[in-house]
């Protein structure tokens, strides 16, 4: 059986290279000899219910509103069915916000209802959170991993009692309210760092796959790729820890 990695609404929620997360998940399965493919769905198309991992990425304000509207309709039922069947959803940035109970965007005070998959509320803050982040994430199996990423968001998120914070922030803003970034609830993991989250965090990529598959994966049999990941991570750790003005200088 070919595992499906489903990218939901690339055209609306893919503005920060979010499709990269899909590429990483599919390749890491393929490299272990497990057939996998990336499936991209756009608004107007039904979301397939047989995905292994679903991905929601970052997007502009209007796109976020359009995406939640489309997903609330019957064409989004596949996502809910898939999660009930044991699939996992990784929701990043705008994708994270729209999974919550409600959010606001842009300058207006209008509160948009979200998908209600996460017990979180997001409201626009005064200043955008932009720059490199470093945090310690805890996966549902209790394992922890250091997360390196880049955040760029104007909304700040408060967790309700049904959601568990995902990662304790060392450097960065994250949710902006509790010293954490992201939230986990049911089969959904939401987080702010966008785009190359999984290329920079291969343990998280494998953690998501293992969570969705319900079994452990062997170590990735790619020496060169593993070494490249380590080099990149070491570089990003070093840069983010030695930089004073995060947004201006974390490069």
């Amino acid at each position: 059986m070919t595992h499906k990695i489903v990218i939901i609404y690339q055209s609306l929620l893919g503005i920060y290279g979010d499709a990269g997360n899909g590429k990483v998940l599919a390749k890491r399965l393929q490299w272990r000899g497990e057939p996998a493919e990336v499936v991209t769905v756009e608004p107007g198309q039904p979301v397939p219910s047989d995905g292994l991992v679903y991905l929601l990425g970052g997007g502009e304000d209007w796109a976020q509103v359009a995406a939640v509207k489309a997903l609330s309709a019957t064409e989004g039922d596949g996502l809910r069915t898939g999660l009930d069947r044991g699939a996992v959803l990784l929701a990043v940035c705008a994708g994270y916000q729209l999974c919550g109970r409600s959010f606001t965007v842009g300058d207006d005070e209008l509160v948009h209802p979200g998908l209600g998959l996460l017990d979180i509320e997001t409201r626009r803050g005064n200043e955008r959170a932009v720059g490199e982040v470093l945090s310690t994430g805890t996966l549902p199996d209790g394992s922890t991993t250091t997360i390196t990423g880049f955040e760029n968001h104007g909304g700040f998120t408060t967790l309700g009692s049904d959601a568990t914070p995902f990662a304790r922030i060392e450097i960065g803003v994250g949710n902006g309210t509790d010293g954490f970034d992201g939230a986990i609830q049911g089969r959904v993991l939401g987080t702010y760092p966008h785009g190359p989250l999984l290329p920079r965090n291969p343990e998280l990529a494998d953690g998501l796959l293992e969570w969705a598959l319900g079994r452990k994966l062997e170590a990735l049999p790619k020496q060169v790729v593993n070494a490249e990941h380590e080099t990149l991570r070491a570089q990003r750790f070093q840069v983010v820890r030695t930089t004073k003005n995060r947004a201006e200088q974390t490069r």
Partner: protein
Amino acid sequence: MRASIVDTIRRHLAFGLGNAAAWASRIAGRGSGASIKGMVMRKIYPELFDRLLTGKRIAVVSGTNGKTTTTHLLSAAMREALGESQVVTNPDGANLREGITSALSTNPSAPVAVLEVDEQVVPDVIAKGHPETLIMLNFSRDQLDRHHEINALGKKWRRALEQAGQNAPVVIANVSDPLVAWSAAPAHKIVWVNLGTDWSADSALCPGCGAMLTHLDGRWDCPGCELTEHPADYWVDGDEVVAADGRRWPLQLQVPGRFNRGNAACALAAAVEMGIDENAAITGMRRVESPAGRFAIGVFGNTRARLVLAKNPAGWAESLLVMESDPVILAIDSLIADGTDVSWMWDVEYEKLAGRRVICTGPRAADLAIRLSYAEVDHEVIPDISEALNGPFDGTVDVLATYSAFLRLCRLGGIELS
């Protein structure tokens, strides 16, 4: 009388000190010095920007990608017809108020100005310079960690065109870009050009009403409002520009790539609106070789390298198509000018390079290496740019670089920026 003498003195002082600052900047190896010169001049004589714009026939070029090359193509076209000294331009890509002020001051009496203008500055130039033509090339995501939400930019352009009314420029607009089409709409005359490029990843939603745009048979349409792709007045067919009345002009440009043929079609359309004969315009454009270092051959010891600049996913998509050498060098920086967030790498189809060897260089080479691994593209990492260029290579090696890396390479390779 006294006021006008003071004015004249301030003007002379601004020119003199501005030139001195530019000279110092060039000696220090910090680029053309145009921006620092303009900054000094505007400090001493704040009205200079407005003054220098007054009384000229102005053609403006703006958009995310292709501004500098298109400005070179259009100014070459105008100069071919009108004479070298009749046209002033900012050839070095310094496109903010400072750079424009500085460029105009090099030939303040030229009756015609062809100006590359930053997207944020366009509304001001429309209001103060009353340009005759405005080329709107494209709007795409570029350094989102600095500029959020490109729709806001389109709104400002619309307002500027509305306020200019009958004084608004004739807009030369890219038919394929919905945000350009929407931004251009208030202009009293629009000349539509199909540039023949196909980046649509940044235009999922209608900028007017927010509905999902549909894409059918290579044309976009909004099901929610009147906005739709307009039939083109000019388009690119192979190496020719074609006008809607059936006339065709072979381009035979020196600058490579289909995107530059599209840029040339826009420049031709603007030249025609400025009253220039098409054949003269084409002859002029054929002289353009390496606008502000783009596509120039740099010499690095025993290595000859062709330098290509790409600043965002749309630019990379087009530029990868003109990469010919094997190996090919990709140089990634992430200074402020490049955008500190390199997530855009995952929007570029590096898979197209499969079968060739890539040398990754620059401060973010490690990010690129991971990207290429997942694209299954053979590569090696040489973080130091000079070392990466050591070779040896068979023939000229192509280097595709982000902005800061590109500037550094121009300096190392002995390439003049204008």
